């Protein structure tokens, strides 16, 4: 049920209008606007310090913007906590995966939103149901037959990634925010992230995919928002750019070509 990319008519699920965030007097984001549509992957690209992480913090309710507003289904919303954003259907896969290694898989899966039964003061975790749901959700993202009571540290690296994605998919029915790790990943690990992004898009979620790699962004993205110095430096669709354009635009392309030019002047024979 993937919607056609660049379908401008579809109303955005989540919209940012003129969002500004300051840390002290330094603006981390200034007047950023973007829209996320159902069944569409919006890739946010930028170098370290361009405001990507702050953008994720705003969308997921960790950071409140100083100016501007968030609109969910056209209605202005203010998230006071990540829990509120989660309750409204915005799920986030954090850069560090937000996994407690010494806790079991199902405890990690439900962390902060554990199912309970019984009445206070006898309200307790519904362990059976939690284990069952966690197992099923992990199978959905491609890790079947997992023992949900083993510690998360016993998972292999790719499975841990899947746990974070499965958690986000399970709790975020509408918007998925994937903040890609800056640490080096193997191709297999990356493939798991990209596959989960695609899975989310295909189940009709609006996906915000934050990355610093134009190649990977171009593999899954429908739209590309370039961040630079906390501002939107470009808002492009798949029709506008190919991988090379995107790479040049993101990776300080202008500086690189200037460097190439000056090298050519210095060594004209090359």
């Amino acid at each position, binding site marked *: 049920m993937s919607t056609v990319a660049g379908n401008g008519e579809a109303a955005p699920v989540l919209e940012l209008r003129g969002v500004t965030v300051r840390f002290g007097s330094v603006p981390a984001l200034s007047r950023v606007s973007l829209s996320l549509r159902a069944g569409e992957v919006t890739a946010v690209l930028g170098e370290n310090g361009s405001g990507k992480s702050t953008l994720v913090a705003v969308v*997921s309710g*960790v950071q409140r913007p100083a100016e501007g507003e968030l609109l969910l289904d056209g209605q202005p919303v203010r998230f006071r*906590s*990540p*829990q*509120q954003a*989660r309750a409204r259907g915005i799920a986030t896969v*954090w850069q*560090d*995966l*937000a*996994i*407690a*290694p*010494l*806790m079991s898989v199902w*405890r990690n899966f*439900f*962390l*902060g*939103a*554990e199912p*309970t039964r019984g009445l206070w003061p006898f309200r*307790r*975790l519904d*362990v059976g149901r939690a284990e069952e749901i966690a197992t099923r959700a992990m199978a959905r*993202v*491609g*890790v*079947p*037959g997992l023992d949900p*009571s*083993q*510690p*998360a*540290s*016993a998972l292999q*690296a*790719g*499975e*841990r990634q899947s746990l974070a994605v499965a958690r986000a998919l399970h709790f975020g029915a509408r918007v998925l925010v994937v903040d890609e*790790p800056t*640490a*080096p*990943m193997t*191709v297999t690990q990356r493939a*798991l992230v*990209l*596959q989960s992004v*695609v*899975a989310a898009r*295909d189940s009709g979620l609006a996906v915000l995919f934050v990355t610093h790699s134009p*190649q990977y962004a*171009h*593999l*899954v993205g429908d739209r590309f928002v370039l961040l630079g110095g906390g501002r939107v430096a470009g808002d492009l669709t798949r029709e506008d750019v*190919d991988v*090379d354009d995107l*790479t040049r635009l993101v*990776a300080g392309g202008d500086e690189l070509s200037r460097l190439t030019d000056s090298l050519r002047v210095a060594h004209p024979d090359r």
Partner: protein
Amino acid sequence: MPGALPMSTDRLPAFRPVTPAAPRSPGRRLLDRLLARPSVGALLGVVSVGFFFALQAPGLLSSGSLATILDIAAPLGIGGVAVALLLVAGQFDLSIGVVAVTSSLVTALLVTQAGLGIWPALLVSLGAALLIGAVNGLLVVTTGLPSFLVTLATFLVLQGASLAGAAALAGTSRVTGLAGTAGWSSAEAVFGATAQLGDGRFRISLLWWLVATALTTWQLWRTRFGNAVFASGGAPRAARELGVPVARTTVLLFLGTAAAGWLIGTLGLVRLGGVQVDPVLGSEIEFIVVAVIGGCLLTGGYGSTVGASLGALIYAIAREGISRAGWDPRWFQAFLGLLLMVALLANGVVRRRLRTVPRS
């Protein structure tokens, strides 16, 4: 041209599950399962230390000796359980021992100097203890200072204040003569009752200890609060990002250790009919020692209150065993240090085994 990976302008095909990873060997699974139970090591410790001293001093197995062991272990276990919860949440509390002394001093002074009944006095001192806990917790949460230092400061303030306060108000560091005041008999029934079994006199503190252990174990493993405790210590940033109330949990745990301190103080107060303000450093450390012997990691995120209770039991068996075996009681401290070292090494193994999660 950065293009080390196979690139295409086509989008990825629709999602399909990856092949399941190779199943882990059953032996490793069993090890993982055992490591997920922090109290296993402490249980082994109880058995081996008990066996060792039963050989050294056969009198250790009498009911009189058992009563002494449980009597030593109970207050230590109550404090150890509360400290274990804090350690799991990644925090320290050095002030619990001095809270015990200070709150029982407040009770005693209110009864002897202000003429209050024992129950109102206990209520006021509980309030005072909780206030200290709240100050500790709020300072740690709002300033982000290490709780070790914050509670060290609290410890010093309370230690000095109780010594000076006792001297100024009662003229001595020993406040006695509480027995027989209004409500004393009912207070004695709740905090000082005993039961004679054989030649052993078992005290009600044992019951309080068991209740505290059972209640906190249930909380830790079977409630959302317990999950928040584990997450606060194991992955504080992740917990905050996921909306786990880390700050509230931390403050509640500091209230818990303060209440445990008050309970320890009250049990002693009712037993002795008074309070002796003693400038002894060391009982603060004991609660942490007991929790660590019980398998809690100092770095947080791992531990159990059953383990802490077993740690208190090991402590008590060693103490009573050394005295029954006729050794110089000063050996006890060396023995305790040895136990702590073994526990720390074992915990280090557990941590290396369990904590290897790459950040990507």
